[in-house]
């Protein structure tokens, strides 16, 4: 492994605990410790702990911080309350997706959590567009550590370590608090389809927090969970992933992400292009769920076929540990996108029967 890779505060822990390390967007990150399926099931049934310190964390301060972010992202961030979080896209003038992000409004600033693979691109993008705004942008990715605690037991485990009443943190809200005496930002967010939290802490305390959660979590059957199961979990929950379901050649309407766009609110970069798609050209393709016959995985790039005609392409595919079947997401021509449509997927030259199904593949039972 290259010495040039960035390392999170827990890199040594991962290596020492069987983590299979790979280069992910320039970071040395664990794909798995034991088995992707075991780690997946731990998150669905108990609780899993993910190192997500590779995610980019950009802090925005200054009088125009709100107005600036509102110009950069597709969602309306002017109305959100302190503590509240919004999902949004960053789009270019053509409406192509540069990234999907979470915008946090904090007491005295805003924060944007961006994909690791897009951190430098988004940093460049915001710096290019900040000149008319009174805003200061600080990249806190290296100075801070971030982890995700996900699964039905996440709240009970975390409650043992905090004075806070965690029930008060609603979905897509955050609170500044402390754990082990260190300041943290804790949010009820995640990328697994389970209840859970993401926690940001100063980098120097990251390992101590991680080890404490692993130790206190043993009675909750906690498992350290790698990027491998992060992918199977998010795919079951039908959450799109940048570089797969999204890229600069896709617009968020085609990607089925209109919940992250407010076309009636203020002007953002890409708004005119999206209005034109919505009101004039319309979308040609749709992001759909595909359920395959059997366990053979339809991987990214596989063609979706209607008889001899290609009508779409797989963007992500995996084996669903929950459903015990091969599942996938992809883009498909609109006329073939109805739920229940029978199609085939070409997997390495073999045709496998497949069906368009409603998304998500999995949704947790809510109390």
């Amino acid at each position: 492994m290259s010495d040039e890779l960035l390392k999170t505060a827990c890199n040594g822990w991962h290596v020492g605990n069987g983590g299979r390390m790979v280069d992910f967007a320039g970071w040395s990150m664990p794909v798995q410790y034991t088995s992707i399926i075991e780690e997946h099931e731990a998150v669905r049934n108990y609780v899993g702990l993910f190192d997500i310190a590779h995610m980019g964390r950009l802090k925005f301060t200054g009088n125009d911080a709100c107005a600036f972010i509102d110009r950069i992202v597709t969602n309306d961030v002017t109305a959100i309350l302190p503590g509240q979080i919004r999902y949004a896209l960053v789009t270019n003038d053509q409406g192509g997706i540069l990234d999907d992000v979470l915008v946090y409004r904090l007491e005295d600033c805003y924060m944007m959590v961006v994909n690791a693979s897009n951190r430098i691109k988004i940093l460049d993008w915001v710096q290019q567009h900040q000149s008319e705004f009174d805003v200061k942008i600080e990249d806190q990715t290296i100075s801070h550590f971030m982890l995700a605690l996900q699964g039905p037991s996440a709240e009970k485990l975390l409650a043992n370590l905090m004075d806070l009443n965690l029930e008060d943190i609603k979905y897509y809200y955050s609170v500044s608090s402390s754990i082990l005496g260190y300041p943290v930002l804790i949010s009820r967010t995640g990328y697994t389809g389970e209840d859970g939290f993401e926690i940001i802490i100063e980098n120097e305390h990251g390992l101590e927090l991680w080890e404490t959660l692993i130790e206190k979590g043993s009675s909750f059957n906690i498992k350290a969970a790698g990027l491998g199961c992060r992918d199977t979990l998010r795919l079951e929950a039908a959450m799109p992933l940048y570089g797969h379901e999204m890229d600069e050649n896709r617009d968020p309407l085609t990607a089925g992400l209109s919940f992250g766009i407010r076309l009636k609110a203020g002007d953002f970069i890409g708004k005119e292009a999206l209005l034109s798609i919505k009101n004039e050209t319309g979308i040609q393709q749709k992001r759909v769920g595909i359920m395959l016959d059997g366990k053979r995985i339809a991987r990214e790039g596989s063609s979706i076929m209607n008889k001899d005609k290609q009508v779409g392409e797989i963007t992500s595919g995996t084996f669903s540990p929950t459903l015990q079947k091969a599942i996938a997401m992809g883009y498909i021509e609109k006329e073939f996108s109805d739920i229940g449509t029978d199609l085939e997927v070409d997997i390495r030259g073999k045709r496998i029967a497949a069906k368009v199904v409603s998304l998500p593949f999995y949704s947790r039972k809510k109390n």
Partner: protein
Amino acid sequence: MSSSDLKFAKSHEWAKLDGDVVTIGISKFAVNLLTDLVYIELPAVGDSVSSGVSIGEIESVKAVSDIYSSVTGEIVEINDSLEEDLGALTEDPYGKGWIVKIKIADPSELDQLMDQKAYDELCQSEAH
């Protein structure tokens, strides 16, 4: 079965000669590397196969890999119980986890393969 009777290919299949039939499977190292096996595609009995050519596929959550024949001959038996349950590959890769049996013409083909010691060294170098 003791793995000392086994010969190994660089592509991590093992082979064992018994009369004029070679049994082929995949090594414990390869199974551990793949983890999370979900699917296997086997050749058909009667297929002619050549050394170094793909005879099937093994798929894990992470990736799909070809299974290569180490010898030239004809498939005489396949372990079709694996199509229902891949557990034997993990639990007993050199026994119940065998994949195919191939009737061969030229036993000297196995001389090209590695013995256990040479294979262990290859695995060590690949693990780092």
